[in-house]
Protein backbone atom coordinates (compact mmCIF):
# COMPACT_ATOMS: atom_id res chain seq x y z
CA UNK A 1 0.00 0.00 0.00
CA UNK A 2 3.08 2.25 -0.09
CA UNK A 3 1.98 4.09 -3.24
CA UNK A 4 -1.65 4.78 -2.46
CA UNK A 5 -1.13 8.25 -1.09
CA UNK A 6 -4.85 9.14 -1.00
CA UNK A 7 -5.75 6.06 1.03
CA UNK A 8 -2.91 6.64 3.47
CA UNK A 9 -3.82 10.26 4.11
CA UNK A 10 -7.55 9.60 4.36
CA UNK A 11 -6.94 6.73 6.74
CA UNK A 12 -4.84 8.93 8.97
CA UNK A 13 -7.66 11.48 9.00
CA UNK A 14 -10.43 8.97 9.60
CA UNK A 15 -8.96 6.77 12.31
CA UNK A 16 -9.16 9.35 15.14
CA UNK A 17 -12.80 9.97 14.28
CA UNK A 18 -13.51 6.23 14.26
CA UNK A 19 -12.05 5.95 17.74
CA UNK A 20 -14.01 8.99 18.87
CA UNK A 21 -17.18 7.47 17.45
CA UNK A 22 -16.43 4.27 19.37
CA UNK A 23 -16.24 6.30 22.58
CA UNK A 24 -19.49 8.07 21.68
CA UNK A 25 -21.27 4.75 21.13
CA UNK A 26 -19.77 3.45 24.37
CA UNK A 27 -20.92 6.33 26.56
CA UNK A 28 -24.19 6.98 24.79
CA UNK A 29 -25.30 3.39 25.49
CA UNK A 30 -27.44 4.66 28.37
CA UNK A 31 -29.68 6.80 26.19
CA UNK A 32 -29.63 5.34 22.70
CA UNK A 33 -28.52 2.37 20.71
CA UNK A 34 -24.99 1.45 21.65
CA UNK A 35 -22.97 0.01 24.45
CA UNK A 36 -19.84 -1.95 25.01
CA UNK A 37 -20.24 -4.57 22.31
CA UNK A 38 -20.75 -2.11 19.46
CA UNK A 39 -18.13 0.29 20.77
CA UNK A 40 -15.58 -2.48 21.11
CA UNK A 41 -16.23 -3.60 17.55
CA UNK A 42 -15.86 -0.07 16.17
CA UNK A 43 -12.61 0.49 18.07
CA UNK A 44 -11.28 -2.82 16.74
CA UNK A 45 -12.39 -1.83 13.24
CA UNK A 46 -10.24 1.30 13.51
CA UNK A 47 -7.16 -0.81 14.25
CA UNK A 48 -8.06 -3.28 11.50
CA UNK A 49 -8.41 -0.34 9.08
CA UNK A 50 -4.93 0.82 10.12
CA UNK A 51 -3.61 -2.69 9.50
CA UNK A 52 -5.19 -2.82 6.04
CA UNK A 53 -3.59 0.45 4.96
CA UNK A 54 -0.26 0.43 6.79
CA UNK A 55 0.30 -3.31 6.97
CA UNK A 56 0.03 -5.95 9.65
CA UNK A 57 3.51 -5.46 11.19
CA UNK A 58 2.77 -1.78 11.86
CA UNK A 59 -0.57 -2.63 13.42
CA UNK A 60 1.18 -5.18 15.63
CA UNK A 61 3.49 -2.43 16.83
CA UNK A 62 0.48 -0.35 17.90
CA UNK A 63 -1.47 -3.27 19.38
CA UNK A 64 0.94 -6.13 20.14
CA UNK A 65 -0.46 -9.65 20.45
CA UNK A 66 0.22 -9.89 24.18
CA UNK A 67 -1.78 -6.71 24.75
CA UNK A 68 -4.70 -8.05 22.72
CA UNK A 69 -4.69 -11.27 24.75
CA UNK A 70 -4.51 -9.30 27.99
CA UNK A 71 -7.48 -7.19 26.83
CA UNK A 72 -9.57 -10.31 26.23
CA UNK A 73 -8.89 -11.48 29.78
CA UNK A 74 -9.06 -8.17 31.62
CA UNK A 75 -12.45 -7.19 30.23
CA UNK A 76 -14.01 -10.35 31.62
CA UNK A 77 -12.14 -9.78 34.85
CA UNK A 78 -13.48 -6.22 35.11
CA UNK A 79 -17.04 -7.48 34.57
CA UNK A 80 -16.69 -10.22 37.17
CA UNK A 81 -14.91 -7.75 39.46
CA UNK A 82 -18.00 -5.51 39.47
CA UNK A 83 -19.96 -8.60 40.52
CA UNK A 84 -17.58 -9.29 43.39
CA UNK A 85 -17.63 -5.60 44.39
CA UNK A 86 -21.38 -6.00 44.81
CA UNK A 87 -20.81 -8.82 47.28
CA UNK A 88 -18.08 -6.94 49.17
CA UNK A 89 -20.32 -3.91 49.59
CA UNK A 90 -23.01 -6.07 51.17
CA UNK A 91 -25.27 -6.83 48.21
CA UNK A 92 -25.63 -9.83 45.93
CA UNK A 93 -23.36 -10.78 43.04
CA UNK A 94 -23.61 -8.10 40.30
CA UNK A 95 -25.67 -5.94 42.66
CA UNK A 96 -25.31 -2.37 41.36
CA UNK A 97 -27.65 -0.83 43.92
CA UNK A 98 -24.98 -0.92 46.62
CA UNK A 99 -22.20 0.57 44.45
CA UNK A 100 -23.19 4.08 45.48
CA UNK A 101 -25.12 5.69 48.31
CA UNK A 102 -27.85 6.54 45.82
CA UNK A 103 -29.21 3.33 44.23
CA UNK A 104 -29.84 5.00 40.85
CA UNK A 105 -26.29 6.37 40.77
CA UNK A 106 -25.16 2.87 41.77
CA UNK A 107 -26.92 1.38 38.76
CA UNK A 108 -25.18 3.94 36.53
CA UNK A 109 -21.82 3.19 38.03
CA UNK A 110 -22.29 -0.57 37.74
CA UNK A 111 -23.37 -0.53 34.13
CA UNK A 112 -20.54 1.90 33.28
CA UNK A 113 -17.84 -0.52 34.45
CA UNK A 114 -19.58 -3.58 33.09
CA UNK A 115 -19.89 -1.98 29.66
CA UNK A 116 -16.24 -0.94 29.84
CA UNK A 117 -15.36 -4.58 30.47
CA UNK A 118 -17.50 -5.69 27.53
CA UNK A 119 -15.88 -3.14 25.22
CA UNK A 120 -12.34 -4.16 26.20
CA UNK A 121 -12.99 -7.87 25.74
CA UNK A 122 -14.96 -7.50 22.51
CA UNK A 123 -12.37 -5.33 20.81
CA UNK A 124 -9.64 -7.71 22.03
CA UNK A 125 -11.46 -10.71 20.58
CA UNK A 126 -12.12 -8.94 17.27
CA UNK A 127 -8.45 -8.03 16.93
CA UNK A 128 -7.35 -11.52 17.93
CA UNK A 129 -9.58 -13.05 15.24
CA UNK A 130 -8.24 -10.56 12.68
CA UNK A 131 -4.61 -11.19 13.64
CA UNK A 132 -5.08 -14.93 13.43
CA UNK A 133 -6.64 -14.78 9.96
CA UNK A 134 -4.26 -12.11 8.66
CA UNK A 135 -1.25 -13.87 10.14
CA UNK A 136 -1.99 -17.20 8.45
CA UNK A 137 0.82 -18.10 6.11
CA UNK A 138 2.92 -15.10 7.18
CA UNK A 139 3.62 -16.13 10.78
CA UNK A 140 4.34 -19.70 9.69
CA UNK A 141 6.79 -18.50 7.02
CA UNK A 142 8.78 -16.39 9.48
Amino acid at each position, binding site marked *: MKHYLVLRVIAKLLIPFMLLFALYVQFHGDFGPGGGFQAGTIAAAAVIFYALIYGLPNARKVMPSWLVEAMI*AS*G*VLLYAGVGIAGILLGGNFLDYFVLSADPVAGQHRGIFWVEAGVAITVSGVMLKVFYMFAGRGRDEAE
Partner: protein
Amino acid sequence: MISAHLPALQVALPLIAAPLMVLVRRGGIAYGMMLAVAWISLLISLLLAQQVADHGPISYHLGSWAPPWGIEYRVDALSAFVLVLVSLAAAAVVPYSRRSVEAEVSREQHYLFYAMFALCLTGLLGITITGDAFNIFVFLEVSSLSTYVLIALGRDRRALTAAYQYLIMGTIGATFIVIGVGLLYLMTGSLNLVDIAQRLPDVAERRPVLAALAFLTVGISLKLALFPLHLWLPNAYTYAPSSISAFLAATATKVSVYVLIRFYYSVFGETLVFKELPVPLVLLALSLAAMFIASFAALYQENLKRLFAYSSVAQIGYITLGLSLDSVGGLSAAIVHLFNHALAKGALFMLLGGIMLRTGGVSLHCVCGLARRMPLTTFGIVIAGLSLIGVPGTAGFVSKWALITAALEAGLWWLVLLIVASSLLAVAYVWRFVEAAYLRAPAPEATEKIEAPWSMLVPAWVLVALSVYLGFDTRFTLGGATRAAQMLFGAGG
Protein backbone atom coordinates in the same frame (compact mmCIF):
# COMPACT_ATOMS: atom_id res chain seq x y z
CA MET B 1 -22.11 -13.71 55.47
CA ILE B 2 -20.16 -15.58 52.84
CA SER B 3 -22.41 -18.63 53.08
CA ALA B 4 -25.30 -16.60 51.63
CA HIS B 5 -23.27 -16.00 48.46
CA LEU B 6 -22.17 -19.56 47.83
CA PRO B 7 -24.46 -20.02 44.78
CA ALA B 8 -22.85 -17.03 43.03
CA LEU B 9 -19.33 -17.99 44.07
CA GLN B 10 -19.82 -21.52 42.77
CA VAL B 11 -19.95 -20.10 39.25
CA ALA B 12 -17.98 -16.86 39.69
CA LEU B 13 -14.86 -18.49 41.10
CA PRO B 14 -13.85 -20.49 38.00
CA LEU B 15 -15.12 -17.62 35.82
CA ILE B 16 -12.71 -15.18 37.50
CA ALA B 17 -9.86 -17.70 37.56
CA ALA B 18 -9.95 -18.19 33.77
CA PRO B 19 -8.98 -14.60 32.74
CA LEU B 20 -6.45 -14.43 35.59
CA MET B 21 -4.74 -17.51 34.15
CA VAL B 22 -4.57 -15.82 30.74
CA LEU B 23 -3.07 -12.71 32.35
CA VAL B 24 -0.30 -14.53 34.24
CA ARG B 25 0.63 -16.57 31.13
CA ARG B 26 2.43 -19.23 33.17
CA GLY B 27 1.40 -22.88 32.90
CA GLY B 28 2.56 -23.74 36.42
CA ILE B 29 0.71 -20.88 38.13
CA ALA B 30 -2.39 -21.59 36.05
CA TYR B 31 -2.27 -25.20 37.18
CA GLY B 32 -2.03 -24.14 40.83
CA MET B 33 -4.98 -21.76 40.42
CA MET B 34 -7.04 -24.42 38.68
CA LEU B 35 -6.31 -26.89 41.46
CA ALA B 36 -7.41 -24.38 44.09
CA VAL B 37 -10.54 -23.50 42.10
CA ALA B 38 -11.53 -27.13 41.61
CA TRP B 39 -11.13 -28.03 45.27
CA ILE B 40 -12.86 -24.88 46.55
CA SER B 41 -15.68 -25.59 44.07
CA LEU B 42 -16.06 -29.06 45.53
CA LEU B 43 -16.18 -27.56 49.01
CA ILE B 44 -18.79 -25.00 47.95
CA SER B 45 -20.95 -27.64 46.28
CA LEU B 46 -20.82 -29.85 49.38
CA LEU B 47 -21.78 -26.88 51.59
CA LEU B 48 -24.64 -26.05 49.21
CA ALA B 49 -25.84 -29.67 49.31
CA GLN B 50 -25.75 -29.49 53.10
CA GLN B 51 -27.72 -26.21 53.13
CA VAL B 52 -30.33 -27.66 50.77
CA ALA B 53 -30.66 -30.81 52.85
CA ASP B 54 -31.14 -28.72 56.02
CA HIS B 55 -33.24 -25.79 54.85
CA GLY B 56 -34.73 -26.69 51.48
CA PRO B 57 -34.13 -25.06 48.09
CA ILE B 58 -31.91 -21.95 47.91
CA SER B 59 -32.87 -19.06 45.66
CA TYR B 60 -30.18 -16.48 44.89
CA HIS B 61 -31.12 -13.26 43.09
CA LEU B 62 -28.35 -12.00 40.82
CA GLY B 63 -28.02 -8.23 41.05
CA SER B 64 -30.77 -8.25 43.70
CA TRP B 65 -33.43 -8.22 40.99
CA ALA B 66 -36.23 -10.46 42.17
CA PRO B 67 -37.32 -13.30 39.88
CA PRO B 68 -39.02 -13.60 37.43
CA TRP B 69 -37.47 -10.30 36.22
CA GLY B 70 -33.92 -10.95 37.32
CA ILE B 71 -31.80 -14.04 36.90
CA GLU B 72 -32.30 -16.50 39.70
CA TYR B 73 -29.82 -19.15 40.77
CA ARG B 74 -31.76 -22.01 42.23
CA VAL B 75 -30.25 -24.89 44.14
CA ASP B 76 -32.58 -27.75 45.00
CA ALA B 77 -32.02 -31.43 45.77
CA LEU B 78 -31.38 -32.30 42.12
CA SER B 79 -29.09 -29.41 41.19
CA ALA B 80 -27.11 -29.76 44.43
CA PHE B 81 -26.55 -33.42 43.57
CA VAL B 82 -25.30 -32.63 40.06
CA LEU B 83 -23.13 -29.74 41.35
CA VAL B 84 -21.36 -32.17 43.67
CA LEU B 85 -20.85 -34.57 40.76
CA VAL B 86 -19.36 -31.93 38.44
CA SER B 87 -17.05 -30.37 41.02
CA LEU B 88 -15.98 -33.79 42.31
CA ALA B 89 -14.99 -34.78 38.79
CA ALA B 90 -13.02 -31.53 38.41
CA ALA B 91 -11.35 -31.97 41.80
CA ALA B 92 -10.17 -35.44 40.76
CA VAL B 93 -9.19 -34.60 37.18
CA VAL B 94 -7.17 -31.41 37.84
CA PRO B 95 -4.39 -32.99 39.95
CA TYR B 96 -4.28 -35.78 37.37
CA SER B 97 -3.94 -33.24 34.55
CA ARG B 98 -0.47 -32.01 35.49
CA ARG B 99 1.53 -34.94 34.14
CA SER B 100 -0.85 -35.84 31.37
CA VAL B 101 -1.03 -32.26 30.05
CA GLU B 102 2.77 -31.95 30.15
CA ALA B 103 2.94 -35.01 27.92
CA GLU B 104 0.13 -34.15 25.56
CA VAL B 105 -0.14 -30.37 25.19
CA SER B 106 2.69 -28.12 24.02
CA ARG B 107 4.18 -26.05 26.82
CA GLU B 108 3.23 -22.57 25.58
CA GLN B 109 -0.44 -23.61 25.52
CA HIS B 110 -0.62 -24.89 29.11
CA TYR B 111 -2.05 -21.69 30.59
CA LEU B 112 -4.66 -21.57 27.84
CA PHE B 113 -5.52 -25.21 28.50
CA TYR B 114 -6.24 -24.50 32.17
CA ALA B 115 -8.12 -21.29 31.33
CA MET B 116 -10.36 -23.29 28.99
CA PHE B 117 -10.75 -25.96 31.65
CA ALA B 118 -11.88 -23.30 34.13
CA LEU B 119 -14.39 -21.92 31.60
CA CYS B 120 -15.69 -25.41 30.89
CA LEU B 121 -16.19 -25.92 34.63
CA THR B 122 -17.92 -22.50 34.84
CA GLY B 123 -20.32 -23.49 32.08
CA LEU B 124 -21.19 -26.88 33.51
CA LEU B 125 -21.73 -25.51 37.03
CA GLY B 126 -23.70 -22.58 35.61
CA ILE B 127 -26.08 -24.80 33.62
CA THR B 128 -26.77 -26.77 36.75
CA ILE B 129 -27.27 -23.92 39.18
CA THR B 130 -29.24 -21.42 37.14
CA GLY B 131 -33.00 -21.15 37.29
CA ASP B 132 -33.28 -19.15 34.09
CA ALA B 133 -33.94 -20.75 30.69
CA PHE B 134 -31.85 -18.35 28.64
CA ASN B 135 -29.04 -18.52 31.17
CA ILE B 136 -28.97 -22.28 30.64
CA PHE B 137 -28.34 -21.64 26.95
CA VAL B 138 -25.57 -19.13 27.68
CA PHE B 139 -23.74 -21.43 30.06
CA LEU B 140 -24.26 -24.31 27.65
CA GLU B 141 -22.41 -22.29 25.04
CA VAL B 142 -19.66 -21.36 27.53
CA SER B 143 -19.06 -25.02 28.33
CA SER B 144 -19.46 -26.21 24.73
CA LEU B 145 -17.13 -23.65 23.15
CA SER B 146 -14.43 -24.34 25.72
CA THR B 147 -14.94 -28.08 25.20
CA TYR B 148 -14.39 -27.77 21.45
CA VAL B 149 -11.07 -26.00 22.09
CA LEU B 150 -10.01 -28.55 24.70
CA ILE B 151 -10.75 -31.49 22.39
CA ALA B 152 -8.86 -29.82 19.54
CA LEU B 153 -5.78 -29.55 21.81
CA GLY B 154 -5.39 -33.36 21.62
CA ARG B 155 -2.06 -34.61 20.30
CA ASP B 156 -3.56 -36.66 17.49
CA ARG B 157 -4.32 -34.62 14.37
CA ARG B 158 -7.71 -36.30 14.17
CA ALA B 159 -8.55 -34.35 17.33
CA LEU B 160 -9.20 -31.36 15.06
CA THR B 161 -11.80 -33.16 12.96
CA ALA B 162 -13.31 -34.67 16.11
CA ALA B 163 -13.64 -31.19 17.62
CA TYR B 164 -15.08 -29.85 14.38
CA GLN B 165 -17.62 -32.66 14.20
CA TYR B 166 -18.64 -31.98 17.79
CA LEU B 167 -18.80 -28.24 17.03
CA ILE B 168 -21.27 -28.80 14.18
CA MET B 169 -23.45 -31.23 16.12
CA GLY B 170 -23.21 -29.20 19.31
CA THR B 171 -24.14 -25.99 17.53
CA ILE B 172 -27.19 -27.64 15.97
CA GLY B 173 -28.13 -28.83 19.43
CA ALA B 174 -27.65 -25.39 20.96
CA THR B 175 -29.68 -23.79 18.15
CA PHE B 176 -32.56 -26.18 18.79
CA ILE B 177 -32.38 -25.42 22.49
CA VAL B 178 -32.50 -21.67 21.97
CA ILE B 179 -35.44 -22.06 19.54
CA GLY B 180 -37.23 -24.07 22.22
CA VAL B 181 -36.47 -21.45 24.87
CA GLY B 182 -37.60 -18.72 22.45
CA LEU B 183 -40.93 -20.44 21.86
CA LEU B 184 -41.45 -20.81 25.59
CA TYR B 185 -40.68 -17.11 26.06
CA LEU B 186 -43.11 -16.28 23.25
CA MET B 187 -45.93 -18.20 24.86
CA THR B 188 -45.38 -17.34 28.52
CA GLY B 189 -43.45 -14.04 28.47
CA SER B 190 -41.03 -15.39 31.02
CA LEU B 191 -37.59 -16.96 31.14
CA ASN B 192 -37.58 -18.02 34.78
CA LEU B 193 -38.10 -21.78 34.90
CA VAL B 194 -40.42 -21.73 37.91
CA ASP B 195 -42.41 -18.87 36.43
CA ILE B 196 -42.72 -20.60 33.03
CA ALA B 197 -43.99 -23.74 34.76
CA GLN B 198 -46.67 -21.69 36.55
CA ARG B 199 -47.79 -19.90 33.39
CA LEU B 200 -47.78 -22.86 31.00
CA PRO B 201 -51.11 -24.39 32.11
CA ASP B 202 -52.87 -21.11 31.23
CA VAL B 203 -51.50 -21.01 27.68
CA ALA B 204 -54.44 -21.63 25.39
CA GLU B 205 -52.52 -22.33 22.19
CA ARG B 206 -50.78 -25.67 22.69
CA ARG B 207 -48.95 -26.10 19.41
CA PRO B 208 -46.02 -23.71 20.06
CA VAL B 209 -45.56 -25.28 23.49
CA LEU B 210 -45.36 -28.74 21.95
CA ALA B 211 -42.93 -27.41 19.34
CA ALA B 212 -40.81 -25.98 22.16
CA LEU B 213 -40.85 -29.36 23.86
CA ALA B 214 -39.81 -31.08 20.62
CA PHE B 215 -36.99 -28.62 19.91
CA LEU B 216 -35.69 -28.84 23.46
CA THR B 217 -35.86 -32.63 23.48
CA VAL B 218 -33.92 -33.01 20.24
CA GLY B 219 -31.41 -30.27 21.10
CA ILE B 220 -30.66 -31.60 24.56
CA SER B 221 -30.54 -35.18 23.24
CA LEU B 222 -27.80 -34.10 20.86
CA LYS B 223 -25.80 -32.74 23.77
CA LEU B 224 -26.37 -35.80 25.93
CA ALA B 225 -25.55 -38.17 23.04
CA LEU B 226 -28.81 -40.09 23.08
CA PHE B 227 -28.72 -42.78 20.40
CA PRO B 228 -28.85 -42.06 17.36
CA LEU B 229 -27.56 -38.51 18.05
CA HIS B 230 -24.35 -39.81 19.62
CA LEU B 231 -22.14 -39.69 16.52
CA TRP B 232 -19.92 -36.90 17.82
CA LEU B 233 -19.12 -38.65 21.07
CA PRO B 234 -16.77 -41.57 20.20
CA ASN B 235 -14.35 -39.39 18.21
CA ALA B 236 -14.43 -36.57 20.75
CA TYR B 237 -13.62 -38.87 23.67
CA THR B 238 -11.01 -40.81 21.69
CA TYR B 239 -8.87 -37.94 20.46
CA ALA B 240 -9.22 -35.39 23.29
CA PRO B 241 -6.32 -35.07 25.76
CA SER B 242 -6.63 -37.82 28.40
CA SER B 243 -7.66 -35.57 31.26
CA ILE B 244 -10.33 -33.94 29.11
CA SER B 245 -11.70 -37.32 28.01
CA ALA B 246 -12.01 -38.20 31.69
CA PHE B 247 -13.62 -34.89 32.65
CA LEU B 248 -16.08 -34.89 29.74
CA ALA B 249 -17.01 -38.54 30.21
CA ALA B 250 -17.77 -37.80 33.85
CA THR B 251 -19.65 -34.53 33.43
CA ALA B 252 -20.69 -33.16 30.04
CA THR B 253 -23.38 -35.66 29.05
CA LYS B 254 -24.51 -35.91 32.68
CA VAL B 255 -25.22 -32.20 32.92
CA SER B 256 -27.23 -32.44 29.69
CA VAL B 257 -29.30 -35.25 31.20
CA TYR B 258 -29.88 -32.93 34.15
CA VAL B 259 -31.17 -30.22 31.79
CA LEU B 260 -33.53 -32.72 30.15
CA ILE B 261 -34.89 -33.84 33.53
CA ARG B 262 -35.23 -30.20 34.57
CA PHE B 263 -37.26 -29.24 31.50
CA TYR B 264 -39.42 -32.36 31.59
CA TYR B 265 -40.31 -32.34 35.26
CA SER B 266 -39.88 -28.75 36.46
CA VAL B 267 -41.06 -26.85 33.36
CA PHE B 268 -43.37 -28.85 31.11
CA GLY B 269 -44.59 -31.07 33.91
CA GLU B 270 -44.72 -34.82 34.14
CA THR B 271 -48.39 -35.03 33.04
CA LEU B 272 -47.83 -33.33 29.70
CA VAL B 273 -44.58 -35.04 28.79
CA PHE B 274 -45.19 -38.55 30.01
CA LYS B 275 -48.95 -38.99 30.13
CA GLU B 276 -50.29 -37.01 27.16
CA LEU B 277 -47.43 -37.49 24.69
CA PRO B 278 -45.65 -40.67 23.56
CA VAL B 279 -42.33 -39.35 24.92
CA PRO B 280 -41.72 -42.34 27.26
CA LEU B 281 -42.24 -44.78 24.40
CA VAL B 282 -39.73 -42.95 22.18
CA LEU B 283 -37.25 -42.66 25.04
CA LEU B 284 -37.67 -46.35 25.85
CA ALA B 285 -37.03 -47.44 22.26
CA LEU B 286 -33.99 -45.18 21.85
CA SER B 287 -32.58 -46.21 25.22
CA LEU B 288 -32.84 -49.89 24.33
CA ALA B 289 -31.26 -49.22 20.94
CA ALA B 290 -28.40 -47.38 22.69
CA MET B 291 -27.92 -50.17 25.23
CA PHE B 292 -27.62 -52.85 22.55
CA ILE B 293 -26.28 -51.23 19.39
CA ALA B 294 -23.65 -49.12 21.17
CA SER B 295 -22.58 -52.11 23.27
CA PHE B 296 -22.21 -54.20 20.12
CA ALA B 297 -20.23 -51.39 18.53
CA ALA B 298 -17.99 -51.33 21.61
CA LEU B 299 -17.30 -55.03 21.12
CA TYR B 300 -15.65 -54.36 17.78
CA GLN B 301 -13.38 -51.47 18.77
CA GLU B 302 -9.61 -51.87 18.74
CA ASN B 303 -8.95 -48.53 20.46
CA LEU B 304 -9.77 -48.76 24.16
CA LYS B 305 -10.75 -45.10 24.50
CA ARG B 306 -13.20 -45.58 21.65
CA LEU B 307 -14.42 -48.83 23.18
CA PHE B 308 -15.29 -47.11 26.44
CA ALA B 309 -16.73 -44.12 24.56
CA TYR B 310 -19.26 -46.45 22.91
CA SER B 311 -19.86 -47.94 26.31
CA SER B 312 -20.73 -44.41 27.50
CA VAL B 313 -23.43 -44.18 24.83
CA ALA B 314 -24.81 -47.51 26.07
CA GLN B 315 -24.70 -46.37 29.69
CA ILE B 316 -26.53 -43.15 28.83
CA GLY B 317 -29.16 -45.55 27.50
CA TYR B 318 -29.66 -46.89 31.05
CA ILE B 319 -30.09 -43.34 32.34
CA THR B 320 -32.74 -42.41 29.77
CA LEU B 321 -34.35 -45.81 30.28
CA GLY B 322 -34.84 -44.94 33.94
CA LEU B 323 -36.28 -41.59 32.83
CA SER B 324 -38.73 -43.27 30.44
CA LEU B 325 -40.24 -45.41 33.22
CA ASP B 326 -41.86 -42.24 34.63
CA SER B 327 -41.88 -43.25 38.28
CA VAL B 328 -40.04 -42.10 41.39
CA GLY B 329 -38.09 -45.34 41.25
CA GLY B 330 -37.14 -44.98 37.61
CA LEU B 331 -36.18 -41.33 37.95
CA SER B 332 -34.04 -41.97 41.01
CA ALA B 333 -32.37 -44.89 39.17
CA ALA B 334 -31.57 -42.48 36.34
CA ILE B 335 -30.19 -39.83 38.71
CA VAL B 336 -28.13 -42.27 40.75
CA HIS B 337 -26.71 -43.78 37.57
CA LEU B 338 -25.57 -40.29 36.53
CA PHE B 339 -23.31 -40.29 39.55
CA ASN B 340 -22.19 -43.91 39.56
CA HIS B 341 -21.47 -44.04 35.87
CA ALA B 342 -19.58 -40.73 36.05
CA LEU B 343 -17.29 -42.15 38.74
CA ALA B 344 -16.56 -45.36 36.84
CA LYS B 345 -16.08 -43.69 33.45
CA GLY B 346 -13.97 -40.89 34.88
CA ALA B 347 -11.71 -43.45 36.55
CA LEU B 348 -11.50 -45.56 33.38
CA PHE B 349 -10.48 -42.71 31.13
CA MET B 350 -7.95 -41.46 33.70
CA LEU B 351 -6.33 -44.89 33.90
CA LEU B 352 -6.35 -45.21 30.11
CA GLY B 353 -4.51 -41.87 30.04
CA GLY B 354 -1.80 -43.48 32.18
CA ILE B 355 -1.45 -46.30 29.64
CA MET B 356 -1.34 -43.72 26.86
CA LEU B 357 1.49 -41.89 28.67
CA ARG B 358 3.59 -45.01 29.22
CA THR B 359 3.02 -47.07 26.09
CA GLY B 360 2.12 -44.33 23.64
CA GLY B 361 -1.21 -45.80 22.65
CA VAL B 362 -4.39 -47.39 23.94
CA SER B 363 -5.20 -49.94 21.27
CA LEU B 364 -5.83 -53.49 22.43
CA HIS B 365 -2.50 -54.79 21.12
CA CYS B 366 -0.67 -52.11 23.13
CA VAL B 367 -2.05 -53.49 26.38
CA CYS B 368 -0.98 -57.11 25.82
CA GLY B 369 0.42 -58.46 29.05
CA LEU B 370 0.18 -55.01 30.61
CA ALA B 371 -1.03 -56.47 33.94
CA ARG B 372 2.57 -57.40 34.76
CA ARG B 373 3.95 -54.03 33.76
CA MET B 374 1.28 -51.68 35.13
CA PRO B 375 -0.50 -53.77 37.79
CA LEU B 376 -2.25 -50.92 39.60
CA THR B 377 -3.55 -49.31 36.42
CA THR B 378 -4.93 -52.52 34.95
CA PHE B 379 -6.47 -53.60 38.25
CA GLY B 380 -8.17 -50.20 38.54
CA ILE B 381 -9.60 -50.58 35.05
CA VAL B 382 -10.93 -54.03 35.99
CA ILE B 383 -12.72 -52.70 39.08
CA ALA B 384 -14.16 -49.69 37.23
CA GLY B 385 -15.19 -52.13 34.50
CA LEU B 386 -16.98 -54.26 37.07
CA SER B 387 -18.87 -51.14 38.12
CA LEU B 388 -19.84 -50.56 34.47
CA ILE B 389 -21.19 -54.11 34.28
CA GLY B 390 -23.00 -53.71 37.59
CA VAL B 391 -21.36 -56.45 39.65
CA PRO B 392 -22.57 -56.53 43.29
CA GLY B 393 -20.20 -54.64 45.57
CA THR B 394 -19.73 -51.78 43.10
CA ALA B 395 -21.64 -48.56 42.63
CA GLY B 396 -22.83 -49.77 39.23
CA PHE B 397 -24.77 -52.52 40.95
CA VAL B 398 -26.67 -50.00 43.04
CA SER B 399 -27.95 -48.17 39.96
CA LYS B 400 -28.68 -51.37 37.99
CA TRP B 401 -30.59 -52.72 40.98
CA ALA B 402 -32.59 -49.50 41.31
CA LEU B 403 -33.35 -49.66 37.57
CA ILE B 404 -34.46 -53.30 37.71
CA THR B 405 -36.63 -52.63 40.76
CA ALA B 406 -38.28 -49.72 38.96
CA ALA B 407 -38.88 -51.89 35.88
CA LEU B 408 -40.48 -54.59 38.04
CA GLU B 409 -42.66 -51.98 39.77
CA ALA B 410 -43.89 -50.98 36.32
CA GLY B 411 -44.59 -54.66 35.58
CA LEU B 412 -42.11 -54.77 32.71
CA TRP B 413 -40.39 -58.10 33.39
CA TRP B 414 -39.14 -58.35 29.79
CA LEU B 415 -37.30 -55.10 30.37
CA VAL B 416 -35.44 -56.70 33.26
CA LEU B 417 -34.29 -59.46 30.91
CA LEU B 418 -33.07 -56.86 28.42
CA ILE B 419 -31.18 -54.94 31.11
CA VAL B 420 -29.43 -58.13 32.20
CA ALA B 421 -28.73 -59.10 28.58
CA SER B 422 -27.09 -55.75 27.82
CA SER B 423 -25.04 -56.07 31.02
CA LEU B 424 -23.71 -59.32 29.54
CA LEU B 425 -22.53 -57.31 26.55
CA ALA B 426 -20.69 -55.05 29.01
CA VAL B 427 -19.08 -58.16 30.47
CA ALA B 428 -17.95 -59.07 26.95
CA TYR B 429 -16.30 -55.74 26.17
CA VAL B 430 -14.65 -55.41 29.55
CA TRP B 431 -13.43 -59.00 29.14
CA ARG B 432 -11.66 -58.04 25.94
CA PHE B 433 -9.47 -55.72 27.98
CA VAL B 434 -8.95 -58.31 30.74
CA GLU B 435 -8.01 -60.96 28.23
CA ALA B 436 -5.45 -58.75 26.51
CA ALA B 437 -3.96 -57.30 29.70
CA TYR B 438 -3.90 -60.39 31.91
CA LEU B 439 -3.88 -63.48 29.73
CA ARG B 440 -1.78 -62.55 26.73
CA ALA B 441 1.99 -62.45 27.03
CA PRO B 442 3.73 -59.09 26.68
CA ALA B 443 6.10 -58.53 23.83
CA PRO B 444 9.39 -60.22 24.85
CA GLU B 445 11.48 -57.05 24.77
CA ALA B 446 9.05 -55.14 27.03
CA THR B 447 9.09 -56.58 30.52
CA GLU B 448 10.21 -53.75 32.82
CA LYS B 449 7.65 -52.11 35.09
CA ILE B 450 6.25 -48.89 33.71
CA GLU B 451 3.54 -48.04 36.25
CA ALA B 452 1.85 -44.68 35.68
CA PRO B 453 3.09 -41.75 37.83
CA TRP B 454 1.53 -41.33 41.29
CA SER B 455 -0.02 -37.98 40.45
CA MET B 456 -2.13 -39.78 37.84
CA LEU B 457 -2.73 -43.01 39.72
CA VAL B 458 -3.93 -41.52 43.00
CA PRO B 459 -6.81 -39.38 41.62
CA ALA B 460 -7.95 -42.27 39.42
CA TRP B 461 -7.82 -44.69 42.32
CA VAL B 462 -9.77 -42.27 44.50
CA LEU B 463 -12.60 -42.53 41.97
CA VAL B 464 -12.19 -46.33 41.77
CA ALA B 465 -12.32 -46.56 45.57
CA LEU B 466 -15.38 -44.30 45.62
CA SER B 467 -17.12 -46.57 43.09
CA VAL B 468 -16.56 -49.49 45.47
CA TYR B 469 -17.43 -47.53 48.60
CA LEU B 470 -20.64 -46.18 47.08
CA GLY B 471 -21.58 -49.75 46.24
CA PHE B 472 -22.05 -50.29 49.97
CA ASP B 473 -22.89 -46.88 51.38
CA THR B 474 -25.75 -45.53 49.30
CA ARG B 475 -26.89 -42.78 51.67
CA PHE B 476 -25.55 -39.92 49.58
CA THR B 477 -26.07 -41.35 46.08
CA LEU B 478 -29.28 -43.34 46.16
CA GLY B 479 -30.61 -41.31 49.09
CA GLY B 480 -29.89 -38.02 47.31
CA ALA B 481 -31.29 -39.28 44.03
CA THR B 482 -34.48 -40.51 45.66
CA ARG B 483 -34.97 -37.18 47.45
CA ALA B 484 -34.46 -35.37 44.16
CA ALA B 485 -36.91 -37.67 42.34
CA GLN B 486 -39.54 -37.27 45.05
CA MET B 487 -39.12 -33.50 44.92
CA LEU B 488 -39.56 -33.47 41.13
CA PHE B 489 -42.68 -35.61 41.33
CA GLY B 490 -44.01 -33.50 44.17
CA ALA B 491 -43.41 -30.30 42.22
CA GLY B 492 -44.42 -31.40 38.76
CA GLY B 493 -46.99 -34.13 39.28
